[in-house]
């Protein structure tokens, strides 16, 4: 759905730091809109109680930037609007003390009227965000209630008072404007400092049956079990913000310009005619005047058409160029589906066998019936009750490779506290995927030794579980319904979103560190080079890492440093200075590391048992 954010800034009432905080918040939101370039994300910045007046507006001392809400916006829009605000900050008519001159309420009214006109019959999520340090003392209750009746939009009030004067009762008149959300400006600032999580809509990647037995044998009177399912990505790696390759020109003086490029794959072969026969050949790209230099200059290459390129597959030291019909035979014709191989105790499946991203399986939302729903729900609940998981043979899509996988039962709650059940699918290694190696033993016995006393204290001292929520093994505070979370999310960052609350105390839940770091630096770069205007400034001031992330990755030392010193002395931990020339060492290590140090045979015997 379309969104519209209208900022109404009571410029005259903002002073000192308060001014800068509001400014920073608005800048952050605007820059995010520039970056996302959404065509349905409108924005407008209305300044009231400024020194100048716009003749076209029925209210004095007000500016609407731009006249109609705009989407998408550019950096130069942001620069010019914020520039006007910046210029007006010390240049205002009054500071709201003089009731007659105060235009805040009128400005707000005009904003609402103009927005109504703009929105018309379109479906749009509209938010008006007011920055002010006053609370409409000069407005009558009647006016306030008329406003509340007439304003169909969400109202967010940013209270820009200094802390001392900040009291709940002072919000009185704001609260009469309907049901606005009122935040202190410091809270809002915090919310833009926190990383903003990107939400991805779930997209179905699998649709098929979960079967126990042969579904084709029912004609013979042999029953089977079959539930229609669908799958969506469960865990998926996020990459960092990608950089685009462009052609850069004229960097020596002034600003460089960038031009788009397209990337193509070219195929080449060596020009053997040049080296094998002495006959002169037509010019090629590479210069190669004396034919005998051969290997030194590298052979001449000729571009060839992609149509004649095929693959020769590796077979040990040999490469096999298969004839067409055999190459065709390599193709697979597996149909999608999940066939149950059996059930097993969860504890008996080594955790390190899970070796892929996860997939969520739920009853098929398109073709599923009540039978599929209840069949699925009872299956998940039974697995939870019995602490078992499913081992299944899995083909995700037609013609895909067969995989063996585990299906793990999960039961979580949605925002209405309804139970939601799912199976989480993970690939398991097959025979060829296992990398069995034997490593030297670290210790003779795995039992605790007297010398482990200090280490025990160390481990206890850094306990992270105190704050964490105690959840049953089949429940996760991070697996949530998309619609539950999307409800909370808008392009306007607000404090303490519900989705964070549950995970804030979970030590294992942190936002993608480098992604947010990159985003933070890019925003800072835009701020410094384009907004503040030091375009040619060479040094970028890199801001400190987000406090929220830092807090989660900072070691939780609760013991005195002397404990660690004791451990260090106990085990003679010393940095070796010699190994500075690492690359050499690593290569050598490959040669050295192998002598078989441990009693492999004992282990083999144990494994065979």
């Amino acid at each position, binding site marked *: 759905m379309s969104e519209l954010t209208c900022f109404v800034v009571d410029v005259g009432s903002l002073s000192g730091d308060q001014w800068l905080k509001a400014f920073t918040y608005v800048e952050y939101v605007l820059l995010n809109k520039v970056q996302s370039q959404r065509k349905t994300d409108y924005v407008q910045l209305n300044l009231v109680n400024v020194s100048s007046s716009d003749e076209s507006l029925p209210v004095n001392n007000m500016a609407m930037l731009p006249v109609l809400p705009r989407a998408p916006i550019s950096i130069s829009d942001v620069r010019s609007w914020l520039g006007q605000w910046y210029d007006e900050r010390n240049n205002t008519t009054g500071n709201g003390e003089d009731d007659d001159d105060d235009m805040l309420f009128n400005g707000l009214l005009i904003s609402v009227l103009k927005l109504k006109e703009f929105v018309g019959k379109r479906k749009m999520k509209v938010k008006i965000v007011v920055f002010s340090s006053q609370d409409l003392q000069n407005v009558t209750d009647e006016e306030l209630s008329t406003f509340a009746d007439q304003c169909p939009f969400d109202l967010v009030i940013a209270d820009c008072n200094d802390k001392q004067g900040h009291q709940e009762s002072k919000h009185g008149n704001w609260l009469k404007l309907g049901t606005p959300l009122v935040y202190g400006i410091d809270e809002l600032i915090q919310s833009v400092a926190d990383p903003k999580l990107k939400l991805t809509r779930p997209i179905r990647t699998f649709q098929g049956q979960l079967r126990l037995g042969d579904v084709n044998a029912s004609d013979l009177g042999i029953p089977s079990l079959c539930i229609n399912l669908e799958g969506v990505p469960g*865990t998926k790696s996020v990459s960092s913000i990608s950089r685009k*390759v462009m052609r850069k020109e004229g960097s020596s003086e002034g600003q460089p310009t960038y031009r788009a490029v397209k990337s193509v794959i*070219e195929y080449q072969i060596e020009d053997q005619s040049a080296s094998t026969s002495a006959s002169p050949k037509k010019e090629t790209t590479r210069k190669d005047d004396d034919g005998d230099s051969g290997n030194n200059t590298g052979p001449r290459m000729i571009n060839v058409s992609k149509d004649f390129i095929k693959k020769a597959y590796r077979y040990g030291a040999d490469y*096999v160029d298969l004839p067409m019909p055999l190459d065709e035979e390599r193709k697979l014709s597996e149909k999608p589906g999940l066939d149950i191989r059996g059930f097993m105790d969860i504890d008996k499946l080594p955790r390190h066998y899970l070796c892929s991203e996860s997939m969520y399986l739920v009853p098929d939302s398109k073709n599923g019936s009540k039978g599929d729903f209840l069949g699925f729900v009872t299956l998940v609940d039974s697995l939870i009750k019995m602490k078992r998981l499913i081992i299944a043979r899995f083909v995700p899509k037609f013609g895909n490779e067969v995989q063996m996988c585990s299906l793990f039962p999960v039961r979580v709650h949605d925002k209405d506290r309804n139970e939601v059940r799912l199976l989480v699918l993970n690939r398991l290694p097959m025979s060829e995927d296992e990398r069995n190696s034997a490593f030297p033993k670290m210790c003779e016995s795995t039992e605790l030794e007297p010398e482990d006393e200090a280490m025990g204290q160390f481990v206890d001292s850094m306990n992270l579980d105190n704050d964490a929520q105690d959840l049953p093994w089949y429940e996760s505070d991070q697996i949530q319904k998309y619609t539950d979370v999307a409800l909370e999310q808008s392009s306007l960052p607000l404090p303490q979103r519900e989705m964070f609350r549950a995970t804030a105390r979970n030590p294992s839940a942190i936002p993608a560190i480098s992604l947010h770091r990159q985003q933070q630096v890019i925003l800072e770069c835009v701020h410094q080079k384009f907004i503040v205007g030091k375009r040619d400034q060479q040094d970028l001031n890199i801001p400190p890492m987000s406090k929220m992330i830092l807090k989660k990755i900072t070691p939780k030392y609760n013991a005195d440093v002397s404990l660690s010193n004791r451990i260090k002395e106990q085990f003679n931990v010393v940095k070796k200075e010699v190994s500075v020339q690492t690359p050499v060492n690593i290569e050598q290590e490959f040669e050295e590391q192998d002598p078989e140090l441990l009693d492999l045979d004992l282990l083999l015997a144990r494994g065979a048992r």
Partner: protein
Amino acid sequence: MSFEQPDFLKSQLTQTRDDDKESDHKKWRRYEAHDGIVFCIQLTPTMYLSNPDLGGKIQLLEILDSLNDLMSQLVVVMPSTAVGCYIYNCSHPNAEDNVYELIPLRDVNYKNMKRVSDLLEDIEQDRILLKDEIPIADPNNPIELSPVLIKVRETFLQPIEGQKQLTNKKIFFFTDDDKPAEFLNVDSRSRLRKVVDDLYDYYINFVTFFIGSEDKPFDDSMYADILKWGSKINEAQSWLSSHGPSTNPINASYIKSKVKRTKEIKRIKFRCPLMLDERADLVVSVNGYTIVSHEIPGSKYKLVYANGSVRREAYSHREYLDAETGEAVDNSQLSKVYTFGDEIIELTEDENLKIQSGYSEHESFLKLIGFRSTEQCLHYYDNIDVPAFVVPNEEDYAGSIKTLASLYRTMLFKKKSAMVWGKLRPNSPPSMFVLTPSSKKDYNQGFYLYKVPFMEEVRKLPDFLNHSALIESDDYKVMSKVTETLINFFNLKNGYRPSDFHNPALQKHFKILREYLLQIEVDKSKPEDEGDETLQKVKQIYARIASSAKSDDVKQQRLVKYLKLWNSFYNRLSNLEVDTKPTKNKKAKLNL
């Protein structure tokens, strides 16, 4: 079918023309290994006898079988491993000094594989006799180990055209003779010791297969003395009180599993410091190894240009063309930039470096955040990557082994895992991990390193079928009971063993290549999925249900009765009009 193997394809040279990749390649080269394994087998009269520990199989055949298996495995998973086989005390006409080269040490290739598999097939079908094909030397000749070891050393060191230098050299040494005459004479013994020392100087190591049985135990004391490390190696390996390779005898039935397990070199995935407490500079160094991979059929290949009769190796490279003019753009003109609205942002190398190095002074590192109960932090529902296995190394920090051993015991005892974060490689972005000690049941002592998904990496659930009223119904209770019973029918007591499931796609791919290379006639009448172990295992369930359906025994029939009961509920519910469609796109909720 004409058979022609283009010569150029045999070259091992990997050529990359992409400048960007070039530097990447260099970085990776240090992690690239080239293994060589030599089977070194002593012929003794008992080698030709059937062994009760092998169910009556002939011991030498078991060894050759494991060589055959090893090569078939390597060609799939580690194709750049060289394998050779040298048999000593052998009077084969081609033998020199009684050393017979069954297959030379070369990267696994179909010719050597064919040599061994043909030999085994001929023996199996009684076309030839093992003692004729691989004859034992005259018992009057002295049995000497030195010649074969010298021969093996030479083959290990000999440069082979088109083959990369070996970085990891192993002798799989098979014998059941614990007191060779050579050891009893002082001169020959010291000569042998010199040969062994020489091998160690070239980092050629032994993996012993000293075959003993209850009736004829193998006394390893002599070999333990002969094979112990010289002073040079001892120093580097002093961190355990070992003095040489394990010489413990094994039962013949372990030959195959030991070959399989020791074939692997340890693939280093990363190597970095683990910071336990930076305040005190309490830092240790660790190595991380790959323990699980995902082999994909057809992922290893070279490009061929095939046009009429012309067949040549081809190379691909990426080129950038100006989007407007179409002209090729020189690399020096290319920049990697961020786009921000209509503006372009280019960070300098220095700025990029500042962001990267802001995490730590180390290029790659792991940093301890704290400890959690393993139960609380290690789940089965949020896996995102392959795990790594982490063990200490002493290269950068002395005391790493003792410290991590103590941490290992402590975490095991307290059932704790460590939360750590860091970068495993200089250029990779930081990640969050759980570090969990391996269990007492594991083969190895060490820690598993599991990546924890970031919040953005845990995706959200779609809206789906919800008939919550059904959960309150009696149907739910009955169906739960039926489901629980069915689950109990198919409990896998042995759990899941990867070795039970060969990847059918991978097997098919290599089967087609092998049959083409060896020009084997393919029997088209066989069903395509015949070799699919995954399907075979699923079909066991089909068979179980079918036999229950056909059984006259009331007890046996229970399975089918429960399945039918489940289906009667399923069908009744499914045939009901689906009145509440899935609650999709509840727009009302978004009304603000």
